[in-house]
């Protein structure tokens, strides 16, 4: 992976920190989308790799060409950094008229890292309409400390995203986001190919930082989400401030004094 690809801006990365995802509509070319179904139908096993991209996917292979799409490569570099580890891959298929949705969950296990995160790439090779069971996700849920499907009791939340998208859409997710495959009420198979990446470098200023002083960064990080309790929403902002401090190396960053106020202990040691 090179750094000559189009990187995300600071505002876009701040939006990722708040939302827990970065979505790129119809970014993958039609010829790759058409090729993908054959690749998927031939079988893609769930494999836990733990090795760098070039060791897992051969140069010129379908997945390498997917990861080399410039906007995908640039967004991945901006969030996870250069030379990430392929954690695992999985093909998710929602069969026509399946009986039930997946329980709302976060992948893997509870993950308390305050200054690092994995990124999950989700690729949708064909159009996903409203009845095809597009992935449910809950924007802004990724910093909540919950374990896998213990959130399964929650069926619907205000402001949830029930994905519909054009062919070739890629979504990059923070590992902690609550999500699940929805029930496919259509007569069409729905595919989604996922790769989880682990960082190999500190995730600090990996994007295009030319706009690091843009006031829209605070607006993005200070969002309230419709599903989030008002009081807990304030804690969410506090936690995003901490993550933004870690990702920028700027320990003084704050929004409306949320972090400064509760650390102010005049005359006391830290």
């Amino acid at each position, binding site marked *: 992976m090179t750094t000559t690809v189009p990187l995300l801006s600071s505002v876009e990365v701040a939006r990722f920190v708040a939302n827990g995802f970065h979505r790129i509509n119809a970014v993958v070319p039609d010829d790759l989308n058409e090729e993908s179904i054959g690749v998927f139908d031939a079988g893609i096993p769930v494999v836990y790799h733990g090795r760098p991209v070039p060791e897992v996917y051969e140069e010129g292979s379908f997945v390498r060409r997917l990861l080399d799409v410039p906007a995908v490569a640039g967004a991945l570099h901006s969030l996870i950094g250069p030379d990430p580890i392929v954690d695992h891959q999985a093909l998710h298929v929602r069969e026509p008229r399946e009986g039930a949705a997946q329980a709302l969950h976060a992948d893997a296990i509870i993950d308390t890292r305050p200054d690092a995160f994995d990124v999950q790439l989700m690729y949708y090779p064909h159009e996903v309409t409203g009845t095809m069971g597009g992935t449910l996700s809950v924007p802004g849920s990724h910093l909540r400390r919950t374990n896998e499907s213990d959130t399964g009791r929650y069926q619907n939340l205000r402001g*949830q995203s029930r994905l519909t998208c054009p062919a070739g859409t890629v979504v990059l997710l923070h590992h902690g986001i609550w999500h*699940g495959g929805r029930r496919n009420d259509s007569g069409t198979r729905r595919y989604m190919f996922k790769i989880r990446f682990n960082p190999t470098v500190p995730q600090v200023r990996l994007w295009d930082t030319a706009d690091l002083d843009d006031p829209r960064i605070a607006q993005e990080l200070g969002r309230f989400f419709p599903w989030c309790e008002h009081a807990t929403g304030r804690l969410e902002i506090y936690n995003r401030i901490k993550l933004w401090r870690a990702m920028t190396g700027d320990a003084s960053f704050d929004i409306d004094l949320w972090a400064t106020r509760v650390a102010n202990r005049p005359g006391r040691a830290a």
Partner: protein
Amino acid sequence: MKQQVLVLYLNNSALDSEVLAWAFYDGTGKTEPTTGDSDQPPYDSGTEALRDGWRLFQASQLIPPYPGHEYDTSYMKHEFFFEKLE
């Protein structure tokens, strides 16, 4: 008699606060609710559910944060279970 269970997650600990999230489990078998099947909550508040005949049978307690974890966020905080019998 068969039980229908409605779970509402409210904006704060007051029963008349806004519904933020919801789940429905139908013991009558007449409906098959599932994850991500609706963007619109069945009621705007807990009290609106009461007015429609739902009986409250459990509410989440107010538990102080664990020391050292005051800023952690986790599960939805204000969970209310209601039932109807048919």
